[in-house]
């Protein structure tokens, strides 16, 4: 595959490019990036969010890792994780043992659940020559408490990266990185807004792939790619179909197979918002990019500008209310809980989220999946019935 996105003249070619990135489980683009950046380091990170700005300022390539989905056969992974643990860690380990991660110099494990946390330990025991970091995020949002701790975590990360990459992370470089990621979020929010308003102009799968490219490409390239896609979308002229509008939630970590996303849409549901790749939009507004203390800016952004998630303590802001607000903001007709099997954070949130939706008279239904699910007819039927019911009620 090409190393960088060229300017595409049509949407199909752009999506083809994004799909090739998605399908490249040997991460050849990472090797290509390293070839183009002699001495440059690439770090893989697990869901959901890390402050990629720091990696960028260290001259590194951050790459989001979501396991192998339905594109990798699990052979050794099952010997690492029991059947009642979600699917993602077994394909992560399968890829790691299969040497598909050979271009990576290290891995970052954000603190979101016990599985990712223990997976960091599995990596420490199994891949002793790689840099491994478990990044703890504060669940206390008091600026004099949680902020102090998180700053320490980020400084630890920055020190490690300086050592690993041999590059100093300067204020200027960090501000520059913040500004690039601000731009990235602007573009992502524009695209998300556009798609929410005109979901018929871009299929859910294509939208997913375009966003997902953001986990693979350097931010400069993803920005160029998104601008390109946005201008191509202006020219798209498509008829809206008679579909309901849904928000999909629960799938922020282990990703559903593309077939599942397509099934939801084909069953009569336009996905007008989702948490499939929540990390890209974790920070909801601009971070100061001209400060003397860019680490402080990243800390504040995490504490004050981040979105809600099952992996974060609700801290007096019930998540159900936040979800209901999102539904209203997107003018959605209902919510689909699309939850990976055995995912504690998602599954344990679901009853209270459902209660909040009921109180707000928002319709919902739920199903579970795993990343290598191959059969979708039951989900298609359920989503279809849900869509029909909503149309009937309206």
């Amino acid at each position: 595959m090409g190393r960088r996105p060229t300017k595409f003249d049509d949407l199909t070619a752009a999506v083809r490019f994004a799909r090739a990135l998605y399908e490249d489980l040997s991460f050849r683009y990472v090797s290509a990036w390293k070839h183009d950046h002699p001495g440059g380091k690439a770090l893989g990170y697990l869901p959901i969010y890390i402050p990629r700005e720091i990696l960028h300022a260290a001259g590194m390539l951050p790459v989001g890792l979501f396991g192998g989905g339905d594109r990798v056969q699990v052979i050794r992974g099952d010997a690492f994780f029991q059947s009642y643990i979600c699917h993602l860690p077994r394909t992560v380990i399968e890829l790691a043992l299969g040497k598909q991660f050979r271009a990576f110099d290290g891995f970052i494990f954000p603190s979101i659940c016990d599985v990712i946390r223990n997976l960091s330990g599995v990596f420490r025991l199994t891949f002793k020559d790689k840099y491994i970091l478990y990044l703890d995020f504060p669940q206390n949002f008091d600026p004099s408490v949680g902020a102090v701790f998180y700053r320490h975590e980020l400084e630890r990360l920055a020190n490690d990266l300086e050592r690993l990459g041999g590059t100093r992370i300067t204020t200027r470089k960090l501000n520059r990185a913040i500004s690039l990621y601000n731009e990235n979020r602007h573009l992502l929010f524009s695209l998300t807004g556009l798609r929410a308003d005109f979901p018929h102009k871009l299929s859910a799968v294509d939208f997913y792939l375009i966003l997902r490219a953001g986990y693979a490409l350097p931010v400069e390239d993803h920005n160029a790619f998104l601008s390109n896609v946005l201008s191509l979308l202006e020219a798209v002229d498509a008829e809206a179909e008679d579909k309901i509008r849904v928000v999909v939630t629960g799938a922020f970590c282990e990703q559903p197979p593309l077939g599942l996303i397509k099934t939801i849409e084909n069953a009569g549901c336009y996905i007008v918002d989702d948490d499939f790749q929540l990390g890209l939009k974790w920070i909801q507004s601009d971070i100061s990019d001209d400060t003397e203390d860019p680490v402080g800016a990243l800390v504040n952004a995490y504490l004050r500008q981040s979105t809600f998630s099952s992996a974060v303590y609700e801290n007096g802001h019930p998540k159900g209310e936040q979800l209901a607000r999102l539904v209203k903001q997107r003018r959605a007709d209902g919510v689909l809980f699309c939850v990976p099997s055995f995912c504690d954070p998602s599954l344990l949130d679901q009853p209270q989220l459902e209660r909040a939706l009921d109180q707000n008279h928002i319709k919902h239904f739920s199903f579970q999946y795993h990343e290598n699910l191959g059969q979708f007819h039951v989900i298609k039927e359920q989503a279809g019935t849900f869509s029909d019911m909503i149309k009937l009620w309206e």
Partner: protein
Amino acid sequence: MGVQKENSMIKQKQMLAEHFMALSQVRETGKKVVYTFVPGNLTELIRAFDMLPVYPEINALQSGMRQRSRAYIREAEEMGYSEDVCSYVKCDIGMMLQGNIGPTGRQLPPPDLLLLSYTGCFVFMKWFENLKHLYPEAEIAMLHVPYQEAGRIDPAAVRYIENQLRTEVIPKLEKVSGNTFDRDKLAAAMDLSAQAEDLLLKVFDSARHKPSPIDAYFGGVYYVGPIFTAFRGTPECVEYYTELVREVDLRIKSRMGPITPDGELSPERYRLVIEGPPNWTHFRNFWKIFYDLGAVFVASSYTRVGGVYDDGFRHSAEDPLGSMAEYCLGCYTNLSLPQRVDLLENFITRYQADGFLVNSIKSCNSFSAGQLVMMRELEDRLEIPVGFIETDLVDPRYYSYSNIKNRLDSFFQMLEQRKSMNHRQVQPV
């Protein structure tokens, strides 16, 4: 047949009865109630405010032992909780929905404060978020304990916890109890905690003897009862452990094995170390599989879930908040996987175990994720037989006697072969 009662057991029973009695009388006494968790608990602090702690996990395990958990879990599942999540949470929520009748048959009072101080498991956070919605009147205080990711306690993490104690936990305890924080009272409790911790470690360490006078897993769950829950930092707790040490010493002198529900375990044939919590719904049946074969557990990771004292950690009167922070950080499931493996390796060598067994709990990712890798690592390092079984904590649907027995049969065959090999090696031909 019941477990043969020793004085320490009778004492523990009395302590529990009094505690639950006090809980049932809060309406009259006006005492405030704090729901909190075992790992990383702040019992001394709660008691310093004259409040009474309730541990939902303990209620859940008691419900499992009393065969109530099936109905409670069903109730929670009907409410929308998935079959796939931690059964403790469902058991607790189901119990609450069915009237909140505690282990002694009396109704438990609702919480005045949900003290979300926990360590080593994200489910705790979700658990209390759910309880907050079920008890909207309760105040909630959160204490986030970072993970020991780099295999050691980071001073910044200690400061973070101390900070949270000062700015979040203590003010909420003051607000709910109406009492002001009394550092001296807390420090006095810390002294008592340290005494009990010394004594508990003495009990655990008695497993160096052959035969081992204790079973550090099935018996161990009784031994850790007072110190892991409502009594750490009290004089009764020290009295309990003093009595327990006396009993264990007596057994050492008489070269006796541990006491099981069917009497003394004798002769000791296999010495094992086990990783993972026990199953509670079939506790006796599960234990019997082992003691019938003369297998004794000389150490277990589960009995470190409410605190690891083997590395020398003790609560300290000199630095109450700092030592509470270190305590929270040091609980077993807050250790990184390499640390857990090292601790287990130490147990196996120190207590001269013949084999290592994993009891993998379906609903507990905090323990289960990574266990297979830990097991292989120990097998590589020590070349000892390893075994693997699967059960659940309180969901009886996941206890299959025949599956467990089949797996254990092969494990014990391996142990037997290893024993006869070792035996042959020392016999002159």
